[in-house]
């Protein structure tokens, strides 16, 4: 995949800075969207594909970290590259812990910025892919009936058909039938794969 594929969102309260970094990134063939206002950014941030965010941490309007949390809550899980005028260690640690991809100090040299952005986009892409996959799975899962979902739970728990039938108060045959449907719907051929799929689903669902 194109390392520059994906949108790079740029948010800095200083328009000049936005302008300068945008130029740089664009020169490096990134698809940059620059904002100097948080609200403007939030409105525009509806990524259809992988995207990352280059974010100035110390903005008067909104604490950068706060923004990160807000995005997360909104389900916009895009990787963030933090920029800061200070070289404060505690802050950077906090940012990383909160899931920042990178933490750079201004003035930021292109040699540092470009790889960071690329990495972020990579993460974004993979996440995107992951997301896409997960989405497909989710759709499959959604196709299951309630009964099937119930059965799947037991199957995944490693129980035998007999046991499941007993637990659910139905015949074994039914269980076998369900099993087959589940396998089909879920697009897997082995119980092990099913487990993996459910795990994936379970991972992304809370």
């Amino acid at each position, binding site marked *: 995949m194109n390392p520059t594929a994906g949108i790079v969102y740029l948010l800095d309260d200083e328009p000049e800075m936005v302008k300068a970094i945008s130029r*740089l990134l664009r020169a490096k063939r990134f698809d940059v969207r620059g904002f100097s206002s948080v609200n403007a950014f939030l409105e525009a941030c509806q990524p259809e594909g992988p995207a990352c965010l280059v974010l100035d941490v*110390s903005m008067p309007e909104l604490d950068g970290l706060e923004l990160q949390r807000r995005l997360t809550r909104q389900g916009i899980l895009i990787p963030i590259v933090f920029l800061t*005028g200070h070289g404060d260690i505690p802050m950077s640690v906090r940012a990383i812990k909160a899931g920042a991809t990178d933490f750079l*100090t201004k*003035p*930021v*040299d292109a040699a540092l910025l470009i790889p960071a952005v690329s990495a972020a986009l990579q993460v974004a892409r993979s996440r995107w892919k992951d997301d896409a996959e997960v989405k497909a799975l989710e759709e499959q899962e959604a196709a299951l009936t309630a009964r099937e979902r119930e059965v799947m739970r037991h199957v995944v728990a490693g129980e035998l058909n007999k046991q499941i039938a007993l637990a659910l108060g139905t015949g074994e045959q039914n269980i076998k039938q369900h099993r087959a449907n589940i396998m089909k719907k879920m697009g897997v051929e082995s119980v092990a794969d099913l487990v993996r799929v459910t795990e994936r689903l379970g991972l992304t669902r809370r």
Partner: protein
Amino acid sequence: MIALTHKPHGYRILAMVVWVTALAAFSGSTLAADPKRVLVIDPYGPGVAPFGSTLSEFRNVLGREYGERVEFYDVSLDRARFQEPEDDEVFVAFLRSRMAARPVDLVATVGGPGMDFVVRHRQELFPNTPTLFIAGSPETVHGGLQQSNVFQVTTTLDLAGLVKGMLQVLPQITNVVVIAGASPLEQLTAEDCRRAFQPLTNQVTFTWLTGMSLDQTVAACSNLPPQTCLLHTFFLVDTVGRPFERNEPLRRFHEAANAPIFGYFESDLGMGIVGGRLYPDLQLGAEAARIAVRVLRGEDSKSIPLRLIDPTLPIFDARELRRWGIREGTLPPGSTLHFRQPDFWERYRWPIAGAATFFLVQAALIIGLLVNRARRREGEAAATLIAEISSKFVNLPPGDVEREIMDAQRRICGVLGLDLAGLWQWSDDTPAGLRLTHLFRTDKGPKPPDPMFAQEHFPWLEAQMLSCRTVAIPSIDELPEGATRDRETFRQFGIKANLTIPLAVGGESLLGALGFNTTRSERSWSGRLVSRLQVVAEIFANALARKRGDELLRDDEARLKAGTELAGLGYFEVDYGADRCFMDARFQQICGNPPGFREGRKALEFWLANVHPNDRQRVLDERQKLHDGSKNPISAEYRYLHPIEGEKWLDHLAALAAHRPPGTGVRTFGVIRDITEQKHARREAEELRGNLAHLTRVNTLGALSGSLAHELNQPLGIILSNAQAAQELLLQNPPDLPEVQSILADIVAADRRAGDVIQRLRALLKRGETSLRPVAMNEVIEEVLQLAQADLIDRGVTVQRSFAPDLPLIAGDRVQLQQLILNLILNAAEAMVGNPSGARLLQVRTSPLGSAVRASVRDQGTGLPPDIEKLFQPFYTTKSQGLGMGLAICRSIVSAHHGRLWAEPHAEGGAVFHVELPMANDPNAR
């Protein structure tokens, strides 16, 4: 007959009037009754005493009392000289013819011889005519003529009694000289006397001066031995028979005699005799006349018995009494004094009264003048004394006042005759009141106690003095009821009268009192005396007040001196008008005046010459303010070149002298102080402060490193990114040159921005001195907020601005103010570190406040410690890192701006820091 001729009417009337009158007159003379005729037979001749006076009295009284006309026919038998009875015939013949022609109504005769004659010849001459015998012995009459129509009035005379009377009046008489003339009658009388005086010859000796000529007799009279008196009987004729004028002999005797003369007859009194019970010759005549009146009116002898007259009551001539020193007391009782002063008095009553009055008036005037003179003399003496005292007290040195007061009191006592004088002075010690300080007394007496307080001994007097009332007590018994204690004290000191005058200047508080007393006698204090002494009291009061003022002044001066010495001040006074100046020892020391330059103009010039040339004009300008009349003191700090010690800094304070007589020049006074050390110390302190300020600025900036870094990093970052972008673009084929151009432009701008930040940084870091210029507080705060923005964001602090529009400019140093606000803002942010995010609000507000501008920084932090002031002290810090100088420096900055900085807790939590700074052009801001 008056012919009646035909005359005009008026004339006719006149004629008739005249006719009638003549007729009346004629009728009067013819129709009236014939006057009575009285024949007076005078045996001795006219004027012969005594009968001369008897007869004349007889005639006068008869004429007066009878009322109608009486004609007198006088016949004198002249028997005094001629004693021959043969001569009778002549007279008889004469009388007969006379009787025939005109019969008489009454015959009067007097004396023995007369009676004899009438007795003898009555029958033939006038047998039926009433006959009146005056004097003579009764026997003769009744014996001789027992007939009707005979009347008699006579008297008896006791000759011996006469002499006895003389002796009674003059007991010391041992010798009586009897005078008689030479005529037969007189001889006869002498004989009678001799006989009568016989029984008295054992008491007195009688000497007889008879038979001599008048001259001889007079001579004899003038040479009489002492204790002699004269008895004058008759002296009618002298030896050659010459009759004397009536009373001439007596007069001459009276003139010549050196002894008192007694006489015989009532009519002699007043002629020179002393007096006594005298022969009433005048009364005889008067009584005879009265009888004659009755006879002429028709009474007969049956109704008019013999009339016997006593000798006179003792009568005396007061003049003779006085002449011979005979006292009235020796006169017999019932005596009458004649010719005494009343005579004189009657005659000269009005002149005498007038003269007496005149003399009285004169005397009164003289006395008045004398008294006046005496009083005036006394008054003059007193006035002179007062004038002397007054002039002496004018220029009296205060130290001499009390002594001179006592001396003056002594003199006053001397001039006015007083005995005791005291000076009381008011004392504020306990007990407060009048205290006797000086006492003068002329006599010995009990000593007053020491100390003597009026409160204890003269409470009532003291009360009067406190009401500023002069008290004049003529007698201590007249003191009122409430002054019993005072009276006791007066008695104790033997004082009889007292005058006490309060001493107060202008009716203000009592300074003392003057007391004047007498011990010898009471004294009425005349109004004039009191007012004189009050003048004296005024003089004393003024002197005492001046003395007290002087003492106070002396005290004040001493204090001032002590004070200036203590403070190391040099004191000076300059009298520009009189070209005089005074510089005290300390001043000389500070300025180093050499000899010859310590007084007057020279001293002044010396000082001015040594003032540093750069400061001289300033000093002169300040001095000029005083010359222009400024009431405010001037002050100046300047460098002074001491000739030996070199350059010094002096602090100089001067003012105009308060009380200046008009017309005199400028007078100033003041102090100087050597502040060289202080100046250096101050300078050092300033340096230190500057250092410290710098240090903290640096420190603060250290704390700002985050912000600073940010401020710089921003432009740097922009530059870097832009430059790298440009590098990329230039690699493209074709390069986007317009884009590169705009990139470069942005780079330049960013660079400039960085440059600005550096500049500001340098300014902040630069060590500067406070220069106050008009500054807009809002701008300053905004700049600081910009500067600190990154930091604040880092700390998650939200800033809320509330700036007053049209805030007046303040007088301030921009850099320092920025430091101040920065400090406050950083402190506020720091305080809120523990707050949850979203609860970190920093509020900045500015507002005008009267003549100042207030800026407030409020946080929601941990608030203030209980002792708020501690915050502002150096080395107070809650941070583990930091000097703790921040707020101390802030305070120092604010005070350099003549403002205020303080902190308050906020009701809703947190703290507010207020800064108040004066407006530019505020008189407080210099």
